[in-house]
């Protein structure tokens, strides 16, 4: 087990270095740097002036020198100065990540129990009417990306009925303005997790030990709750963890759509305004989140399922 975890962490570190190298390379391409020089200095800079500005800021040094300087600082927590927000990047990131954290908490709080419940109910009796209805419902929910459901919900619940607000503010988190973004994000992921849970549940329900329990004379409800659930929830666990990278795209879409100034919104601002330091820090955080969840999912799966041989 320890070797397994160490190997996973090794791969994770290699992935992290490779990804940050790519991001660093893409962000500091000559075109981006030229634009940066012009927004920082003056729009009508001559090529020579751009060149001297880049020289002064240290962008003309060898690529690997710049990269190692950046990664050295980042690991120590100094991510530089955000040119758009006029604040240290770490401050911006910390603040915005907190807002997104609140949003994600509610999304998870709605999505995970909902999806597990739907999946277990559908997989309990495969092929029943309830199963068919719930399955079609989950397929429909995975077919509607955030930018579709977001718009449909806004039109119905905000524009037409006026129940909720179509804008979510980071300052006041109320039921009224948080329902739509949370619902939009939760629904897209819910169908997928529900389908995984259903498949896993249906498989468990056909296994020998469930039949034995039934033949012993236990009630259907007891068998489902006490015997089937535990084994059926192993697969959805990994799926839920692997949802995080996917949720990141969702976060960006939903935050843009509902004007919620969180992490995703910051990504768009950083990319749109060519804020190199901020963009690098965002990629760094995003990559760490993705890799950590993958690691947790791997370890958790091995831990939960003793049949998985860790070798």
């Amino acid at each position, binding site marked *: 087990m320890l070797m397994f975890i160490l190997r996973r962490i090794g791969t994770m570190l290699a992935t992290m270095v490779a990804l940050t190298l790519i991001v660093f390379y893409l962000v500091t391409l000559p*075109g981006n740097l030229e634009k940066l020089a012009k927004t920082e200095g003056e729009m009508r800079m001559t090529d020579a002036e751009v060149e001297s500005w880049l020289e002064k800021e240290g962008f003309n040094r060898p690529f690997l020198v710049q990269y190692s300087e950046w990664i050295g600082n980042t690991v120590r927590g100094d991510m530089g100065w955000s040119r758009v927000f006029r604040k240290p990047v770490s401050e911006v990131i910390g603040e915005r990540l907190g807002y997104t954290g609140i949003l994600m908490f509610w999304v998870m709080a709605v999505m995970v129990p909902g999806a597990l419940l739907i999946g277990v109910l559908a997989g309990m009796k495969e092929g029943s009417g309830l199963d068919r209805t719930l399955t079609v419902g989950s397929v429909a929910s995975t077919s509607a990306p955030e930018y579709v459901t977001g718009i449909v919900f806004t039109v119905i619940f905000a*524009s037409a009925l006026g129940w909720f607000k179509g804008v979510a503010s980071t300052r006041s988190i109320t039921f009224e303005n948080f329902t739509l973004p949370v619902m939009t994000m939760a629904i897209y992921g819910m169908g997928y997790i529900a389908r995984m849970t259903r498949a896993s549940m249906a498989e468990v329900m056909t296994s020998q030990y469930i039949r034995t329990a039934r033949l012993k004379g236990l009630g259907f409800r007891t068998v489902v709750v006490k015997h089937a659930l535990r084994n059926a929830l192993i697969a959805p666990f990994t799926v839920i963890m692997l949802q995080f990278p996917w949720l990141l795209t969702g976060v960006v879409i939903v935050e843009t759509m509902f004007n919620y100034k969180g992490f995703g919104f910051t990504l*768009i601002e950083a990319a749109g305004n060519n804020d190199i330091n901020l963009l690098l820090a965002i990629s760094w955080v995003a990559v760490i989140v993705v890799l950590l969840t993958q690691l947790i999912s791997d370890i958790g799966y091995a831990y939960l399922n003793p049949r998985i041989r860790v070798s």
Partner: protein
Amino acid sequence: MVETIGTGEIVIQSIARFWPTWIAMAVTLSAGYLVRERLGMFGRLYGSRIGMAGLALVLFWVFTAIFADQIAVMGPLEQSFTFGMKKAPPGTVDLKNGVVFLWGGDNLARDVFSRIVHGSAIVLVIAPAATLIAYMVGSTLGLPAGYYIGWIDTVMSFLANLVLAFPVILLFYLLVTPEVNRPVPVDLGFVTLPWSIPIGMAAFFFIFPILFLSLMWFTKYEKDRTRLSLYLAVTLAVGLWLYSGLVFNADPLGVVGMAPNELNIFAAVILGSSPGVFRIVRGLTMDIKTRDYVAAAQTRGERPWYIMLWEILPNARGPLIVDFCLRIGYTTILLGTLGFFGLGLQPESPDWGSMINHGRSFVRLAETAHMSLFPAIALMSLVLGLNLLADGLREESLKD
């Protein structure tokens, strides 16, 4: 003075306008029903209600895309200059020429209905084509990874996981910004080619279909020299011709070409979806490799690539077809995401993602919500169709 028609009439006229689609669907579905015994997996779809619903939705959009010019009443960029047609609510009649804006007009007085119909042609070309190329890339790399395992697998799985760990949206932002993908001419001595990172990526990905087909012919007709050279010649001639036109916009005949914007999103979408294909092909290969007929082929002394392409791949087709349907839907969503952030095609393009992005700022008022609501529903119905079709196919393929 603005004249509108009622909701009932909007529905009836919308249905009526799609008449070429309905006829084509009726013909296809009934022809399919007659020969369903010979269609294998697809024929058995007729027994599944979910699968049929999916197939009907997909066929609806496929035929709408084919007959787009007959169905749409206006061009994708055509504006009406009659008073009151800007942001016109659904069902408004253009008083000058009597054209009804069934699904309303956008803020530039273009017909939303016609734009969605024209947009279907764009979406239904790019999404399946990009998925197909992603499949060729994923199969060409996934087969050896699953077959040989060892270091090939380690390296390629690492690369695939690298791309999968990259948040898609960030990747798109980094790749599709104008600063990154402005083509720079590169002089190779005999020819000058445009070069940028997306072009480089496309140059890498688009070689795979040629490689894949050549490998297939090469392994199958190794003994039959005349056939082999014929097939190879055709593949290489057509492939390289398309390649030069699509990737470098340097088609010697000047027929095939792609705008730089289109190439960028093509490359980005292929990059985003080929690791997934790689993983599923690799997994299936590892599974099928242990079957008896593979062992038989190995004993016969067949080459590894023959076994991979002609023994393993055909036997993996069931799950792969299902995954292909799902993945086209996923690619459609990705394309929409790109459009939503304004990173896709030209902003005025009628593809659904761009339309949603365009109408997004008007969504908070019920009177103007139709501008993004209708393309959103169109996108969802296509993806839903593909997902239901995949579900039906999966159910049918599990039966045997």
